């Protein structure tokens, strides 16, 4: 006895098909509202890209007349851009390295040991995250003028340590809280001295945390505007300072190009350390 084709279809093929179709639309429906969200999130980047590659774009044209990279060439060959890019990179790199070196022992003590006054130390380290950079910058401006650090790269690196040290230290302290010292004991009895153990056992074991901490330090230093402005006294122009003054000026193409140049290194650094991130860490930056 055979079923007629129609009922065969209804009984055997339609149901799973229906489910698949419903599933698809359900997902699309659920996903549909995400589109405006992602659009909003990507809007500034999109604007930058539009302007940066444009030429001769006048109001009220909705899109540029021509697409070109000449703006990039112009801006990137400008010595001011190159200098500020170089300075920003050097400062951020120096700050990252220094804050790691200074923060590492502090984090180890904080995360691994229980001792009297630990709360106080924690609080002191936390303070720079809540004191406004405005107050810090203004006060340091006076101090650095007196001791001759104002307007120097060293002074700026030192000043940047204030906001970065807390994040670096707390990130590493978190790693040490989950750390088991017995690994180091093992290395010792196998013949490794203190320094060797540090480099061949301790650092590799907390490597992911080190990467995240370095990322934080880099990002924070890279994006510093006010602190650099106040300490630099106009003599050191980092990229954010340059960007800000361009934005106050007016040529949107230049602004867009500078913004993209400014965004590139952090994006690269994030991609490089992406393996070790799972989201919670960036939020802790705040």
């Amino acid at each position, binding site marked *: 006895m055979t079923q007629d084709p129609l009922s065969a279809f209804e009984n055997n093929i339609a149901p799973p098909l229906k489910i698949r179709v419903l599933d698809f639309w359900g997902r699309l429906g659920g996903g549909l509202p*995400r589109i405006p969200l992602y659009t909003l999130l990507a809007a500034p980047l999109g604007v930058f890209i539009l302007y940066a590659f444009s030429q001769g774009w006048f109001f009220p044209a909705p899109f540029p007349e021509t697409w070109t990279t000449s703006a990039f060439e112009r801006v990137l060959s400008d010595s001011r851009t190159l200098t500020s890019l170089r300075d920003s990179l050097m400062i951020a790199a120096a700050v990252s390295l220094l804050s790691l070196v200074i923060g590492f022992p502090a984090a180890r003590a904080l995360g691994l040991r229980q001792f009297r006054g630990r709360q106080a130390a924690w609080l002191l380290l936390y303070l720079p995250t809540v004191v406004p950079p405005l107050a*810090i910058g*203004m006060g340091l401006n006076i101090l650095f003028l007196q001791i001759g650090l104002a307007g120097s790269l060293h002074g700026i690196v030192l000043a940047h340590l204030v906001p970065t040290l807390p994040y670096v230290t707390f990130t590493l302290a978190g790693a040490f809280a989950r750390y088991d010292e017995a690994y180091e004991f093992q290395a010792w009895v196998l013949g490794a001295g203190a320094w060797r153990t540090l480099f061949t056992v301790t650092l590799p074991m907390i490597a992911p945390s080190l990467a995240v901490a370095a990322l934080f330090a880099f990002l924070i230093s890279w994006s510093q505007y006010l602190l650099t402005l106040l300490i630099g006294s106009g003599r050191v122009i980092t990229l954010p300072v340059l960007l800000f003054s361009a934005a106050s000026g007016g040529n949107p193409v230049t602004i*867009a190009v500078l913004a993209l140049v400014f965004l590139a290194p952090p994006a690269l650094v994030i991609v490089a350390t992406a393996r070790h991130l799972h989201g919670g860490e960036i939020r802790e930056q705040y």
Partner: protein
Amino acid sequence: MRDRLIFSPWLALAPALTIIVLLLGASLAYGLAQSLGLMSGLNESSFSLRAYADLFSGQGIAGREFWGSLGFSLWVSLASTLISAFLALLLAFWLSGSRFDTLALNSNLAFPHLVWAIGLLLLLSQSGLLARWAASLGWISMPAEFPVLVRDKYGFGIILSYIGKEVPFLALLIISVLKTQPDGYNLVAENLGASRWQRIRYVTLPLVLPALLSGSLLAFAFIFSSYEVPALLGVNYPRMLPVLALRFFNDPDLSARADGMAISLVITVITLVVAWISLRKGEQ
């Protein structure tokens, strides 16, 4: 060897703590001193509460603007934080917490505030992208007809900019709290007959609110004391307090420095108080 390697924790903490205590302490001390008339670089510096008196009584160039700026700062900070918190709640409940969503939100977090504000500037200014599109659609014919959305006297642009950064931050905060919520509570509530809305109201929301409150307070403190965005997207009057402070700090008239410092310290005190409350809320 243990004694040599695992030395006293204070020794290990010393470099970090020294830098922070010295720099932070010195900057606040110097700031306080200048605000009190000392160390102003003038020939005669003497202790004086003039700056503070002027501020709070509304006299002097700085004092005239102070209360207005304070009000403006509070308005912007409150509006930004409240709207952000509300939107973040909606967003967090609506999103599933999938990896793609959190990735998108996280990439927004890594976007510097300054650049975000600049992007908004290019987008929403009267000769910006949206204005051009509006013109090409025939809605307006010249830039001046486009509504003033940034660099406006209500701080609209500033608020918009901060919302764009705080909503992802707070949303991620809420999502992470939601992720730790054991399904058990929800299931039990459902079992006992609670509807979806009731479950949200009586189970999920109480779980989420403390973290949201703590995070919002931090955001408020941050917005209140931050300079870059209002400097870029604000107008000459009214100004947010940090912008006001810096303007007087950079004034060629050295006696105006005291005013700038005083404003900066007022900002600091308010920020610290709010941050302290946030910390206490977070501990609960």
